[in-house]
């Protein structure tokens, strides 16, 4: 690879580049209902810059630019995007997969991108394909995201004449682990959308055994902006260790729950203000979704939405989920229902996940019902240790993280339930969104920016 070529190419920001300090970026002029048309998209962001490599031996300038921008994956794991691009750029006939198969019930951002801004993520997929020398882009969208499937399908059709790559849509069965990389590869190879044993990793041997780049929909949307406006522009927002903006799904007792674009490092208070303020006091906030961690309500006033800051509370933004739990809810009953749902989402492939998550969920249910015998927290700790790092994917570890965090954050409530059984709030309708009951109200929340 020649660095030489790459350094030449840090393009000066386009003449029409937007002010780097201003938001929204991704959500600029986002329509509230209909998807943004190709013409409208090009009017907002300009033509797609072309990133042809100067032959196989030279690295694409875009990869260097993405590296300088410091872009990290937005699907939850936060892996450096440039490293991922490089890993397949050397492979033979790589394939690019846009991962919009959002299985996290508390996240709506990838669904929003698919529904309303399909061209932005398709741009990112096309640019990534050019950068790694791929001729094929596959867009994975959850089959339950009907509007997203329609919109992406129409957008692919709309740009078919002008696209430098072949694009196709694949609808993925809805499931919490279906969006996991090896599960997507499994699905695209004709198998079930369930994780497989790795290595080989998708970048080594993925779709049709070819090197496969799988990037989250938002990651590629961000990449499409970096390609147009440059890495310096990208870094004008965010923190040095986490540059740029991010899409965040805010839900819970706020006036306008939905998808917001924030600057990394913005305060939680400013996000809540943008959502019209709280409608009830928050007992705690769940950061990062159902594989994430709780932060006590008393700490929320000083919370800053960057991973560096959240790490001091044992949390991270993950795929950009911020979920407030109201003071009126019962955190034990809520944890019990989420833990059961997560146990049910096990692919039932790995023994420790299948048995361990069920046992963990049962223990939390027993605590919530006041029927638990013996030392319940010891039991949870023992089961957690039996489950952790023993699955083929990260699902068991994520579920353990959530349960342990709930037990710690809501220690008083857990102790009270274990001793005295259900509280008055246990009978309230659950607040935390789960697909079985929230498909209706999770639909059509309008994205807003601030």
């Amino acid at each position, binding site marked *: 690879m020649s660095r030489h070529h790459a350094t030449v190419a840090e393009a000066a920001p386009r003449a029409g580049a937007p002010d780097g300090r201003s938001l929204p970026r991704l959500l600029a002029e986002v329509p509230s209902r209909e998807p943004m048309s190709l013409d409208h998209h090009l009017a907002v962001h300009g033509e797609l810059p072309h990133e042809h490599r100067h032959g196989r031996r030279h690295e694409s300038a875009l990869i260097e630019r993405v590296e300088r921008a410091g872009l990290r994956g937005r699907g939850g794991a936060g892996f450096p995007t440039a490293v991922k691009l490089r890993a397949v750029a050397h492979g033979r006939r790589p394939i690019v997969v846009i991962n919009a198969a959002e299985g996290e019930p508390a996240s709506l951002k990838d669904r929003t991108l698919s529904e309303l801004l399909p061209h932005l993520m398709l741009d990112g997929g096309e640019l990534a394909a050019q950068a790694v020398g791929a001729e094929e882009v596959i867009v994975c969208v959850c089959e339950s995201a009907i509007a997203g499937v329609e919109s992406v399908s129409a957008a692919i059709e709309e740009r078919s004449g002008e696209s430098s790559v072949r694009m196709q849509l694949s609808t993925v069965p809805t499931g919490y682990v279906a969006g996991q990389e090896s599960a997507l590869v499994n699905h695209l190879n004709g198998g079930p959308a369930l*994780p497989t*044993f790795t290595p080989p990793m998708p970048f080594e041997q993925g779709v049709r055994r070819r090197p496969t780049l799988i990037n989250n929909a938002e990651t590629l949307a961000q990449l499409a902006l970096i390609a147009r406006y440059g890495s310096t522009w990208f870094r004008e927002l965010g923190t040095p260790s986490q540059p740029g903006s991010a899409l965040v799904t805010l839900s819970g007792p706020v006036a306008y729950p939905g998808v917001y674009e924030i600057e990394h490092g913005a305060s939680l208070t400013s996000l809540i203000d943008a959502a019209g303020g709280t409608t009830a006091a928050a007992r705690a906030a769940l950061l990062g979704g159902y594989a994430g961690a709780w932060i006590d309500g008393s700490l929320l006033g000083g919370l800053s939405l960057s991973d560096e800051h959240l790490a001091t509370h044992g949390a991270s933004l993950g795929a950009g989920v911020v979920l407030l739990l109201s003071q009126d809810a019962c955190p034990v009953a809520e944890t019990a229902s989420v833990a059961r749902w997560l146990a049910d989402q096990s692919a039932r*492939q790995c*023994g*420790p*996940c299948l*048995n361990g998550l069920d046992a963990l969920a049962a223990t939390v249910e027993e605590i919530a019902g006041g029927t638990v015998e013996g030392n319940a927290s010891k039991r949870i700790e023992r089961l957690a240790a*039996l489950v952790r790092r*023993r699955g*083929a994917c990260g699902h068991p570890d994520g579920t353990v993280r959530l349960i342990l965090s709930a037990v710690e954050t809501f220690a008083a409530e857990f102790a009270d339930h274990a001793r005295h059984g259900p509280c008055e709030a246990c009978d309230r309708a659950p607040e935390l969104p789960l697909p079985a009951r929230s498909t209706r109200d999770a639909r059509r929340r309008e994205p807003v920016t601030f």
Partner: protein
Amino acid sequence: MSHSSHKLRLNPIACEAHGMCAELFPERISLDEWGYPVIDGEPISPSLLSHARRAAQACPTFALLVEKDKAPA
């Protein structure tokens, strides 16, 4: 020094909790309460390597792997 050692790795999807491995290589493999192997991932000393290989060969689902592990350069 690029000295290669060996480690055990389990394919948790293939594993069906037959338990042969723990029987044949109790030095490094125990079973959890559901019968699935709990594996010590530390390098296997040369004197134990034949036990590890026997355990891997005995697995009916080929879920246990003895892998060469390059020591960090």
